[in-house]
């Protein structure tokens, strides 16, 4: 009898201990949460204030979903791996933790589903994906509970059927977890998040439509540019569309296409054409950083001041989607802002062509001769060469320049003594755009060497012995813009016969 009493005594003590713990947990954690719930619904109903304005308990708890949701993914996938591997001899020890992992998985799944449901009530997401995610989430919960029981059963039973059924359950569970997770990801990051940067070939293989991406063309001519297409759209795409796109639609607003912008968001006043001060799109950009309605929200990349100003101008001018900038009223400030959208590197003409890095040894050899040789601009491989400090160009210098024939684009040989062989080499510097040969001994024979310099735009021949015969050999150079022939033997007649063949050249005499 005494032994029985003793036996029960320990049990009762244990029970007391459990009750005590339960009480502690209840008071410390469960009750406050319950009070929160009650308080929330009570205050919302009693005072009739829109819950969103004060604090929204659904959203508050709902937002714990992404916090908790990674736990069941980890537990359940690990449980599946352990459960399946545990059936094989080398991994037998894994069998022991499978049930524990499944239990943790079930608990965390339930803990994730509840806030997940609450979050889904704040309609900010694409409903088809949301529905799919919701039902997949529920099925993960159900299947994981069944798998938990099944695993318990397998441990006690010896029937083969139980073991096979258990494997099927675990595999199904793993697939379901992955599908649910993928759909959840699609909700927050957009459905194309994973495949956006996949190579086109792979996209075709798995049957994703390859969308021809219209690469934003760098603006070269502001007057030809369309304000929305070339400036506004890229800004919105870069700074707003990660939340306001067709799948994510924060605040029911899509900013990635004209239709979405015209339709507007929840406020219905996203854009009031002509009145930027009444347009939410503009107003919210100006709010102080901590303000709830301020866009972009804290932590997202800010708009530059000139981007905000250009949006203001666009709305003020009627928020058109197809008007060219040339047809709009731009004052000096706007014009200055517009220039910020033009790439600053002058990449017109030859400089748009990519060429290789010049050979450093050739540069050093030329510099050793006192020749001034530097890049035309930072980040460009084109070179400018000036013989101003050299004691006189030699055939060796000319040969060294040949090693840089792709890169040399400006060459100044004023006051040098040039030989025929030097001229032959210079005639091979195919990317030359500017060539100064003024005050040299160049003759009509020497100048023939230049007739294949197709990129030549500027040729300075002043104070040389050039005559009409020499000039005319250059008629084929289509890119030539100016020839300087002051103090030469070029005559009016020679000039006019040259201009007859190539009228685009300006010859200064």
């Amino acid at each position, binding site marked *: 009898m005494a032994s029985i009493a003793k036996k029960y005594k320990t049990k009762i003590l244990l029970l007391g201990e459990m009750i005590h713990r339960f009480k502690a947990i209840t008071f410390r954690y469960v009750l406050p949460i319950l009070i929160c719930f009650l308080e929330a619904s009570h205050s919302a109903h009693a005072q009739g204030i829109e819950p969103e304005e004060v604090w929204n308990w659904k959203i508050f708890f709902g937002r714990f979903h992404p916090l908790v949701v990674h736990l069941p993914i980890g537990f359940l996938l690990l449980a599946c791996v352990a459960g399946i591997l545990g059936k094989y001899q080398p991994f037998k020890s894994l069998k022991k933790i499978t049930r524990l992992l499944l239990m943790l998985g079930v608990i965390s799944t339930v803990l994730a589903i509840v806030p997940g449901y609450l979050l889904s009530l704040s309609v900010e997401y694409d409903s088809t994906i949301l529905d799919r995610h919701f039902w997949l989430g529920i099925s993960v919960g159900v299947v994981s509970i069944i798998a938990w029981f099944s695993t318990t059963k397998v441990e006690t039973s010896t029937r083969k059927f139980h073991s096979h059924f258990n494997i099927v359950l675990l595999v199904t569970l793993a697939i379901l977890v992955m599908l649910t997770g993928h759909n959840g990801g699609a909700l927050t990051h957009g459905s194309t998040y994973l495949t956006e940067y996949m190579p086109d070939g792979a996209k075709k293989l798995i049957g994703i439509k390859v969308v021809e991406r219209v690469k934003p063309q760098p603006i070269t001519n502001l007057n030809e540019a369309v304000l929305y297409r070339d400036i506004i759209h890229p800004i919105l795409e870069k700074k707003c569309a990660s939340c306001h796109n067709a799948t994510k639609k924060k605040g029911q607003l899509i900013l990635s296409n004209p239709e979405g912008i015209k339709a507007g968001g929840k406020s219905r006043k996203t854009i009031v054409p002509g009145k930027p001060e009444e347009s939410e799109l503009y107003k919210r950009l100006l709010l102080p950083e901590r303000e709830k309605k301020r866009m972009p929200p804290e932590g997202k990349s800010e708009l530059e001041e000139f981007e905000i100003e250009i949006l203001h101008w666009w709305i003020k001018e009627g928020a058109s989607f197809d008007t060219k900038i040339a047809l709009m009223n731009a004052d000096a*400030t706007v014009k200055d802002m517009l220039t910020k959208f033009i790439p600053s590197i002058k990449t017109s003409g030859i400089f748009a062509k990519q060429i290789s890095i010049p050979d450093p040894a050739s540069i050093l050899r030329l510099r050793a001769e006192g020749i001034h040789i530097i890049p035309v601009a*930072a980040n460009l491989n084109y070179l400018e060469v000036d013989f*101003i400090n050299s004691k006189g160009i030699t055939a060796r210098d000319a040969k060294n320049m040949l090693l840089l024939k792709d890169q040399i684009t400006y060459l100044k040989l004023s006051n040098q003594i040039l030989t025929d062989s030097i001229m032959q080499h210079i005639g091979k510097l195919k990317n030359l755009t500017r060539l100064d040969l003024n005050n040299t001994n160049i003759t009509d024979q020497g100048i023939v060497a230049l007739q294949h310099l197709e990129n030549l735009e500027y040729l300075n021949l002043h104070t040389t012995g050039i005559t009409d015969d020499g000039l005319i050999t250059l008629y084929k150079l289509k890119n030539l813009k*100016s020839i300087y022939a002051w103090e030469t033997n070029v005559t009016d007649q020679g000039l006019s016969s040259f201009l007859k063949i190539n009228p685009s050249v300006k010859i200064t005499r």
Partner: protein
Amino acid sequence: MDNTTKNSISKLSEVKTETRRQFIGNLSTGLGALALGSMIGCDFSSSSKTSSPESLYKLPNFVPSAKRVIYLHMAGAPSQLELFDYKPQLVKYNGMDCPKELMEGKRFAFLRGIPKLMGPYVTSFKQYGESGAWVSNHMPHVAEMADDICFLKAMHTNEFNHAPAQLFMHTGSPRLGRPSIGSWVTYGLGSENENLPGFIVLASGGKTPDAGKSVWGSGFLPSVYQGVQCRSQGDPVLYVSDPRGMDRPLKGKVIQTINEINNESFEHLNDPEIKTRIDQYEMAFKMQVSVPEAMDISKEPESIRQMYGAEPGESSFANNCLLARRLIEKGVRFVQLFHWGWDSHGIDEQLSLNHGFVKECKSTDKPIAALLQDLKQRGLLEDTLVVWGGEFGRTPMQEVRSDATFLGRDHHLEAFTIWMAGGGAKPGITYGETDDIGYYGVKNKVHVHDFHATMLHLLGFDHEKFTYPYQGRNFRLTDVEGKVVSDVIA
């Protein structure tokens, strides 16, 4: 000599050696950069570091359209109303009281109370060239070049006194201590000719600018970038010729010894300004030969001298214009001309619109036109930017201080004219408009900072990126302001 020359090339490159502050500042990034450099390997700018010109200056951010500058500064501020800003309405209002609103809350250097408006002192204003730019009878030669010129008619500034306004115009700040545009440009683009300074200053008109040498000073930039003043009369640079009893080889030895001593103290103190001093000694030695040669306008053909109206041996604006072309041709980066004599308050003969002003127009008109023409025929105007302008404008109101027979106008900061030619500035345009009496700019106003930003843009620099670290922050010519006026860029 040869040895010295060769040494100097490599030594000049060490001018930008770091100071203690920079060294400590670089400690954090320096090692990383070192590793990166060795990873990239044979990058041509780093492999030739020891004597490469790149280490001497920055490279332009993009391909420049202007590679050289001739800045014709008209010290004292010529009246835009008598030259380029044609205001027929002002003739009608001549002698009438200035509207009260134009005086309220404004500060002028001399005007007080309610002054009277004054019509332009001109015999005619005509449109010239295909562009139809307005130029008065005072500048007939410049008028002929109108199609090469880009007029900025609604310039405005912050300062109404000469010294601060000149500083503002040349350094972007009305206070002392900032580098001048010429220094910024040579710091940016370097000098092509290793025997001549990259930045040369020529003054005429009998007086140097009110703001003193600071308008061509290098401020916080290393002092190799400061302007070197040359003269068209006597020694081109003061004390450039060898003193009696001191021949050139001896002088060479002296300089070599001084530099050896300086080098020793550099190794001891590591002050980059010592390097600058060494370079300056060597440059001075080379200049003894190069400068007299460059400054000798008697070598120019007679026809060219006549074109400018230049007379060898004189100190004149015409000589300076011809010299400017010679220097530019020899690879000098920035030639700054100052011509004093435009402060037409109407207080005496020189400082009056009906006497001194007319005289200054006569003495500058022909040389300026000749300079443009000469640069053009030599193919230099395409990439040489020529700038003409004062430090501010003059009021539409007459200033009467003592004698009303001398016509005069006070300093005016709200509107004045500056022009540019060549170097990628759009030729044959007039940008900006002032109101009927030329008091305020009413369309396309350009502030001094905007003008600087535009100049730097033509020279290949983004004025917001072209900086120099000093006292813990990066400084720019335009400080925190300035917008590139894209409409005047060809």
